[in-house]
């Protein structure tokens, strides 16, 4: 048991406080007073110069939200959130919107630089000549810079902050906003509908293959600012888009609430690939001050042969409550969910997916890898359901959990519901620790215990890493080893 003891000792000494991205930037911000009321909702709407229909939409969400209660079924524990003690709007000072990168506050650019965001073209191209990434950067709540707009415009792709889309493409926003995640969907989504600040909007016209990977970096910055991003991606018939989302957040004392909503709509023969690397501040070694992440992500395979794929690498946040889902409405549509969730310290992860089969011959695939270390709790919670008309639905689910240390927990809660005899569902789950044999084998060949563990963990999550776009895969691999630093003996 010597090795075990050693692992336990090392876990105890994890220095979660040494969060690599725990810094904050001093930029004056323009914010609404604390608390939430109809006036605040109107204030946010007015700040963004929104049309009346959107203001009304927000207000109806707010009124609905007042009647709802916070869900408590997830395996996460946290002090009660005082929704009146949060700021619901904050925008960097230079709100009128910079026209080019030169106009952007240099402080802001330096922050991005520290985060390694490839905002400038040369940075993006460094090393990766052939692939290009467009960034719609979100600093706190308002998008401040968008690159590659021209090239995207040539292809007919609309990629802009959602606030801009409301102004320039109201017909699209009005048609699709809230059509996947309805206003009254759940407590956090409803809250988001009422107060969403900004986010990305993507529209890919029929038959267009988006010429580059689209990407948004989120960053929580102002103290006590709840972040309520709203992302809407529409892939019209026969189109393809790959979207990357990544985030890091500065260290804060008080818990920060994040309740984003992401809606994807895939029409006939369209494909959307949505990848996330999430590395928000997880709190200190006692779990204080980490981000609360309550996200509603849902994709609607509305058309025939449509395809939505979610890939996520979750390493941050004190609490992760997130279930990227697919509604497989169109016949022959496909949904995929690939996830790596790493938890360490006092982190609590309750994440998974929902695959709702409605159309004929719909297929879904779920690969979930959970790694828990330290004193964290890591839960996979997923639903696979086939409705009466989901003739020939097919699902394969594989959830594996790896435990590092004996003070963490790994849980699996799948719900598999079938109402159609021709639906074929398979689910398998395993939980184990890193085998001593594997460790011994690797160490015998000259690797240190930590290297050996990293190697095995990397092998464990390989199926999912392969699904990530190349730029992200490298970053994700680094993140996983950083997250587990010190947790293995």
């Amino acid at each position: 048991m010597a090795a075990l003891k050693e692992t336990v000792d090392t876990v105890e000494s994890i220095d979660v406080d040494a969060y690599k991205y725990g810094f904050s930037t001093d930029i004056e911000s323009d914010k609404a007073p604390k608390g939430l009321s109809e006036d605040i909702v109107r204030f946010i709407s007015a700040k963004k110069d929104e049309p009346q229909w959107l203001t009304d939409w927000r207000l109806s969400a707010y009124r609905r939200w007042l009647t709802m209660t916070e869900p408590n079924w997830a395996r996460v524990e946290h002090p009660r959130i005082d929704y009146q003690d949060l700021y619901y709007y904050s925008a960097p000072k230079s709100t009128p919107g910079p026209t080019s990168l030169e106009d952007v506050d240099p402080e802001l650019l330096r922050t991005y630089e520290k985060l390694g965001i490839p905002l400038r073209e040369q940075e993006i191209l460094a090393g990766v000549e052939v692939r290009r990434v467009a960034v719609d950067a979100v600093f706190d709540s308002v998008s401040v810079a968008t690159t590659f707009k021209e090239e995207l415009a040539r292809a007919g792709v609309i990629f802009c902050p959602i606030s801009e889309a409301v102004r320039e493409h109201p017909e699209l926003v009005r048609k699709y906003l809230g059509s996947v995640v309805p206003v009254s969907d759940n407590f956090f989504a409803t809250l988001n509908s009422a107060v969403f600040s900004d986010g990305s909007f993507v529209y890919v016209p029929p038959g267009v293959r988006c010429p580059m990977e689209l990407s948004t970096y989120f960053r929580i910055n102002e103290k006590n600012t709840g972040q309520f991003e709203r992302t809407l991606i529409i892939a019209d018939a026969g189109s393809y888009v790959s979207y990357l989302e990544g985030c890091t957040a500065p260290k804060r004392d008080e818990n920060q609430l994040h309740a984003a909503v992401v809606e994807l709509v895939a029409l006939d023969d369209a494909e959307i690939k949505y990848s996330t690397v999430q590395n928000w501040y997880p709190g200190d070694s006692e779990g204080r001050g980490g981000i609360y992440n309550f996200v509603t992500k849902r994709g609607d395979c509305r058309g025939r042969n449509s395809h939505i794929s979610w890939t996520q690498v979750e390493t941050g946040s004190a609490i992760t409550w997130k279930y990227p889902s697919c509604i497989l409405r169109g016949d022959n549509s496909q949904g995929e969910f690939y996830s790596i969730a790493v938890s360490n310290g006092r982190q609590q992860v309750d994440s998974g997916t929902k695959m709702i089969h409605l159309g004929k011959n719909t297929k879904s695939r779920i690969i979930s890898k959970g790694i828990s270390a330290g004193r964290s709790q890591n839960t996979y919670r997923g639903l696979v359901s086939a409705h009466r008309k989901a003739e020939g639905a097919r699902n394969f689910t594989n959830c594996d959990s790896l435990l590092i240390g004996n003070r963490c927990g790994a849980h699996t809660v799948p719900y598999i519901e079938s109402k159609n005899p021709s639906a074929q569902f398979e689910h398998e789950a395993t939980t184990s620790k890193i085998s001593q044999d594997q460790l011994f084998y690797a160490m015998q060949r000259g690797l240190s215990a930590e290297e050996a563990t990293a190697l095995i963990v990397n092998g464990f999550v390989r199926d999912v890493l392969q699904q990530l776009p190349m730029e992200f895969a490298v970053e994700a691999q680094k993140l996983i080893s950083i997250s587990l630093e010190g947790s293995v003996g």
Partner: protein
Amino acid sequence: MSDTATSATADLKTAFDAMKDAGARPLRQSAWDAFSREGLPNRRVEAWHYTDLRAALCAVAPLRAAGPATPALARERESCRFVVLDGAFRPDLSDVSALPYGVSVLSLREALACGEAEILAALAGDAEDPTLALNAALMQDGAVLRVSPGCVLERPLEFANFISGGAARSVFTRSLVILGAGARATLLESFTPLERSGSQENHALVMVLGDGAKLDHVATIAPQSEDAVRVVSLLATLGENSALNSFCLVEGGGLLRRQIFATLSGVNADVSFNGASLLRGRDHADTTLVIRHESPGGKSREFFRHIVDESATGVFQGKVSVAPLAQKTDGAMQSKSLLLSDGASMNNKPELEIFADDVVCGHGATCGRLDADQLFYLEARGVPKPRAEALLIEGFANEALERVKDEATRDALAARVAAWLRMREAL
């Protein structure tokens, strides 16, 4: 219990108040308090997500009084049988005069009256389930069996629960079997209506296995009428090096919830829970397991097969929970289901809850219809379709039946499966 107060709970309260002279009042009272905190479970209670008991039990039938004096009771096989008829233990119908050496039996009423600490503690067994608490509050009677340490019983013991027909009645039974250290026994358990009726039954069987004890348990739940509501619970506590192998054949009938709560409290305990359910019509059968590994070295195996036809609904929920202390736990669970018709539904929820790191745990669940290739193979060889289907279904069910060690018992179970299939084929 503000929002949970329904007319059903009010009826149950009346029944509870009427039982004030039934003995073991403190035990009943605390169980009642536990029940009334939650009320009848409904869809919003996570453990009852797929089985809405509150909706099914909108009116509570009155408690059943004494059953018929000399009923004709079928006997499937040679055993030392203890009969509980309409909720009352019937020594006159049981094999009490020829008890095997080392076995003692009491009725639940007697056991509660004499108040022996060991028995009372075992009977109070609770698993945070409102229906189990309700059972403890309202338990009418049952059999309390003790097998002395070291006794090895050749002849199987049998708890036979019979319900006579007639107007809808409620029945609450609780039986107990305590196996002393190193004892070995086979226990058969059956739930059989003499005549189908919309009865409301809540049965609990508590098992306590001493260190090194071994028990083989086979239960059969016979069909009941469509408006019946039945909850059949099994509570098992296992000591060091003890082993329990349990099988249950469910033949549906109305709403049925079979629940198993097993606690592996001694080191190296070994449990195996297996079962097959055959559902048709508008049957709703729920099998729920909660296996708690509390000591190191435990092993658990669960293996279930569900066959769901017509408009029936099958539910399987299996939770394996491993405490931080329970290192070296080995757990595997498998639930496979076969949907035979367009109206059939199956809900699977296998669950792992793991707090120890040196464990190997896994589960698998599948759901689908008969394999078209296999059907084609048989049909191509001249087997008519209904017969080919029956063959494949039988093979599917037999995968679970194989887990029953005793050959005679296995054959009897196979015969019941075959009878069920013949009925299906005839339609």
